[in-house]
């Protein structure tokens, strides 16, 4: 489902210099896999995630998503594909504070052009699925950390993605809540969703089916 060949990414620093975040990543992830990406800070995990999530383009190499080379897509093409195929879960949740939980979940559907009522209905169903029945009208500020992350996951699922990318989804949660969120991700994976999760926590990494270690912009064998 995901195939990367010699992915490279360099961030410009000063004149003529650059910081090479990715220096040749080869990676293959199959449909239905749950992979944890680990590695020290600054090793290029987040850059990899951004490229896989179509937020960024690689400078070199190829990225095949479901057999299509998307590494040279322009911004509009990437936005559209991101909208339809990828769901993001963030460490700091990244919910819109003035909107209710249901409205946050609804947003990606509205960008896709789903009618308002239909989107609202599906948002409620998704919130129920992640265990937030009855909290649909609360704003993020009225929810606990674990609840916020569940809203984040529900939002990531809004457009029925084939790939869920989670950047340290438990990083801002206490360990018990973190485990609950992890259980939720595992159950989603059991239902067939492909998940790629960046984490520092080796216990969580072990709980995922596969661990990918990144160091200095490369994957350790």
């Amino acid at each position, binding site marked *: 489902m995901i195939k990367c060949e010699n992915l490279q990414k360099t961030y410009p620093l000063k004149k003529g210099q650059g910081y090479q975040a990715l220096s040749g990543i080869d990676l293959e992830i199959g449909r239905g896999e749950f992979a944890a990406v680990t590695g020290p800070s600054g090793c290029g995990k987040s850059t990899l995630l*951004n490229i896989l*999530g179509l*937020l*960024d383009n690689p400078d070199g190499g190829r990225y095949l998503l479901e057999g299509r080379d998307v590494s040279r897509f322009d*911004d*509009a093409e990437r*936005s*559209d594909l*991101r*909208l*339809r195929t990828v769901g*993001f879960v*963030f460490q700091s949740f*990244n*919910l*819109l504070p*003035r909107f209710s939980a249901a409205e946050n979940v609804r*947003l*990606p559907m*509205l*960008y*896709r*052009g789903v009618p*308002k009522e239909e989107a609202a209905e599906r948002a409620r169903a998704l919130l129920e699925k992640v265990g937030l029945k009855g909290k649909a009208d609360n704003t993020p500020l009225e929810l606990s950390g674990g609840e916020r992350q569940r809203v984040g996951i529900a*939002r*990531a699922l*809004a*457009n029925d993605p084939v790939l869920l990318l989670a950047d340290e989804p438990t990083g801002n949660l206490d360990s018990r809540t973190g485990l609950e969120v992890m259980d939720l991700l595992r159950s989603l994976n059991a239902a067939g969703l492909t998940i790629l999760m960046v984490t520092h926590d080796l216990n969580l990494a072990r709980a995922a089916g596969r661990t990918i270690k990144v160091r200095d912009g490369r994957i350790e064998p």
Partner: protein
Amino acid sequence: MRFSEAVRTGTLEIFSHKMRSFLTFFSISIGVISIMYSLTLIYAMTSRTKKALEVAGPGRMTVEMKRNGGSDSALDAKEAKSVITLEDALAVRSEFPGLYMVSPGLKKWVELSHGQFSDEKVVEGITTEWKKRGWVYKLRGRFLNQHDLDTYARVCVLIEDGGWMKKPKWYKFYGWRDKFQDYIKHNDMLGQTIRLGNNLYTVVGILREPPAEKNPKYFMGVSNWDPSLLVPITTSQRFLNGWAWSSGGVDDITIDTGKEATIGAYKRKVDKFIKARHGGRIRFEIKDYREIIKERLADKQRDMYTVLIIGAIAILAGGIGIMNVTLATIYSRIKEIGIRRAIGASRGDIMTQFIIEAMLIGFFGGVAGILLGMAGIQYLASKGDTDMMLLQWWMPFAAIVVAVLTGFLASLYPAYQASRLDPVEALRYE
């Protein structure tokens, strides 16, 4: 992205920054108010011009003495002793039979009395041609005829105010009461004898004006020099004592060619003809009616331009305000933009969102301006400003369109900037 959703987001954003939004509303409002005011003035001027031309007919022009002493290189002012006279009018009449009307007028400020009542009024000496000057009256008795003119008859026709169909509120407080009009309303003057200057005149007819709402002359602005009485011009010249502009001649000769197309040609011919009659020793001018109306409206036009410029500046300031607000909004919402991009929003979605927000600011500011402006215009109208009575239903809409358009234009650049933000950087922004 649904339009209604963008509107909702925009409204949330506007109302969570009340002061910032209020300041922008404020300058947009001023712009909208002045736009409405100027539109009303423009409308009033064009409709007055149109109505005035309708009453006058398309072929109207006036021959009158040059009033300001502007220099005329061909002619020394001391030399030019001659004035236009009744005889000029009669000669023009017989020289150019193709003209529809040649109507001389001679106004005098005359003392008038009837029994205990006395007043000073403008009395205009006329010929029978006067009837062709936009007749809007109802006549009781008879009008002046050629026999009156030939025999210097001491007869007169009164012009009675038509009143109002429905008296406006302001009229009670600010309306100027004319005691002569009151007197003739309560005393049937037809057939009576009144004293004008040192002589007695018989009232042979009474002309009643239509009610003010239906009187096209009313909206042209009534002047103190509109006559209340008409007498034969010959009688006026021979017997009537009172103060007049013209020394010995007539005030003006109003000519109607009957057709707009022939004005230019007749203007030249009449000019040459009258000059010849006076051996060139005369300083007069012929103005066609369009020029006269333009002159009358010149002051209002200046007002309008001033207000329009103030309005344009206010709208511009409002636009800059919107641009500033939108830019500030963007910098305080970089994270939000990143989140929206990450969950699938395209550049276009982001741009649309900020543009709609700015257009909403324009819209709310516009609505506020319209409410204030309407109140102001109603107030002016209630004080008797007849221009402001002509506010049309579409003017507020036009003003709103301008306000919303300002929002649109002012937000293009900031919204473009917002849409170009790198989603990865925006997401990382704290």
